């Protein structure tokens, strides 16, 4: 699903946000990307949804070379990727329904089908009763669940989340994490950038650790001992 080969991203004055990253994530995996602030987590995610281009190396996502992808293809790539941000990034002047069906609208999906899909994903995140509310009327946890609903309504192949629980308390964070697990169980590859170690313990999965722009650890959870 994701393949990075010696990917480097440097800004002006040769300050490298990411240096020589090579990694591979298989389809259907659930992976954490962790590291302290400034380690390069967000930069890596931005490279994966082609918000930025690496200065060196190659990046492949869902079979597409992101270094060579033409600009007009980028929207189509992003429709295969669900993105969740720490600050939710919802359209405040649109209802929950309009927010999550936005992509569906320009895909030409009928209103009836949009409603069916919206209801289904909102039920998944437990917000079916808030379909006609506006984001400012919702709590932080509810807004993040709307953002997740928006990210998954299109049944993406890949779900990227950048500190999705950063603005939430522990209980809500675990709820959100459980949602990601459910989405992953349905076959979507999930990559969550977080510096919250509690999450890693709550749901142990593969962990990639960045430090000053370098990949310093790629750890898979130890399988539980077989109970005889």
């Amino acid at each position, binding site marked *: 699903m994701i393949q990075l080969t010696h990917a480097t991203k440097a800004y002006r004055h040769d300050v490298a946000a990411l240096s020589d990253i090579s990694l591979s994530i298989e389809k259907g995996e659930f992976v954490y990307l962790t590291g302290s602030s400034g380690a390069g987590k967000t930069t890596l995610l931005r490279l994966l*949804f082609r*918000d930025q281009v690496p200065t060196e190396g190659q990046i492949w996502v869902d079979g597409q070379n992101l270094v060579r992808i033409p*600009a*007009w293809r980028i*929207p*189509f*790539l*992003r*429709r295969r990727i669900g*993105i969740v941000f720490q600050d939710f*990034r*919802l*359209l405040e002047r649109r209802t929950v329904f309009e927010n999550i069906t*936005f*992509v569906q*609208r*320009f895909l*030409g999906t009928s209103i009836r089908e949009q409603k069916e899909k919206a209801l289904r994903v909102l039920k998944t995140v437990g917000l079916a009763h808030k379909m006609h509310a506006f984001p400012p009327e919702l709590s932080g946890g509810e807004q993040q669940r709307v953002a997740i609903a*928006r990210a998954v309504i*299109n049944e993406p192949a890949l779900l990227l989340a950048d500190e999705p629980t950063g603005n939430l308390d522990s209980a809500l964070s675990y709820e959100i994490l459980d949602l990601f697990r459910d989405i992953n169980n349905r076959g979507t590859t999930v990559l969550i950038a977080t510096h919250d170690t509690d999450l890693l313990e709550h749901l142990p999965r593969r962990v990639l650790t960045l430090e000053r722009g370098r990949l310093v650890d790629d750890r898979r959870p130890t399988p539980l001992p077989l109970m005889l």
Partner: protein
Amino acid sequence: MMNWIYFVREALIGLWRARTSTLLTVLTIGVSVYLLGGFLLLSENLSHLGDEWTRQATVQIFLEDGTTEKTRQTIEADLAADPGVFSFRYRSHQEALETFSRVFDSLSDLPDSLGDNPFPASYEVALRGEDQGRSTLQSHLERWRQFEGVEGAQADIAWLDSLRNIARGVQTAGIGLGLLLAASALFTVINVISLAAHLRRDEIEIMQLVGATATWIAGPYWVEGAVQGLLGGATGLMFLKFSLWGVEWAQAQGPVFLSFSGTLSFLTPGATAGLLIVSTLMGFAGSVFAVRHFLRLSA
């Protein structure tokens, strides 16, 4: 189809949200269209006025002193046989003098001081409608000047030529000024749409992240620009029509020299539609440029 419904709905919401800047843009375009249309209207009416006065112009054929009755009969026979001549009237030496004395009362003793009656006998010829064009008139004058016993032939059309030249000048100046104003209106549209896009940059960024194409993002702005152009054009033309009514009203109330109300006319349907199309395209082009520039910067 769904795309266009979405574009139009979003554009109308956007226009309503930014009512003040929308009004400013519509008025700026309106002023350009008003002035451009005004100059076209003025030049068109001056041109029509010239045509009308040319049609009303009569030709004077002046006879040499001592023209014989036989020569006159020949001239009259030719005029009567000319299909281009509507009517003609002979004006004798004496009649010309009397007319001068009547029209210029204060100069009535001038001919006496000159001795002999200086006014030649003449024919006053009115041409038929279809033969009153500028070129036809010239060819008639050329022919009649060749007649035996004719000293000269003239129609006071030189000043009508001047009037046409003025009309052409007004038209050229109007187009020049109109282009300048159109450029300023275009600049206003670009700035207003850029500002609107800037104010909604968060929304645009989110749209880009969820996979909206450039067309989907830009569509509502294109419609916004086109609607502003159309409204601006309609506003300018509406005020132009009001102005024409005002002039007609002033003519009805005013002095005799303004009494040519019958010749005043509004722009032709083609010119009206043309101005509306141009103003709409101007708004559209401005928004296309502004959004493309904005998306390029935000990419």
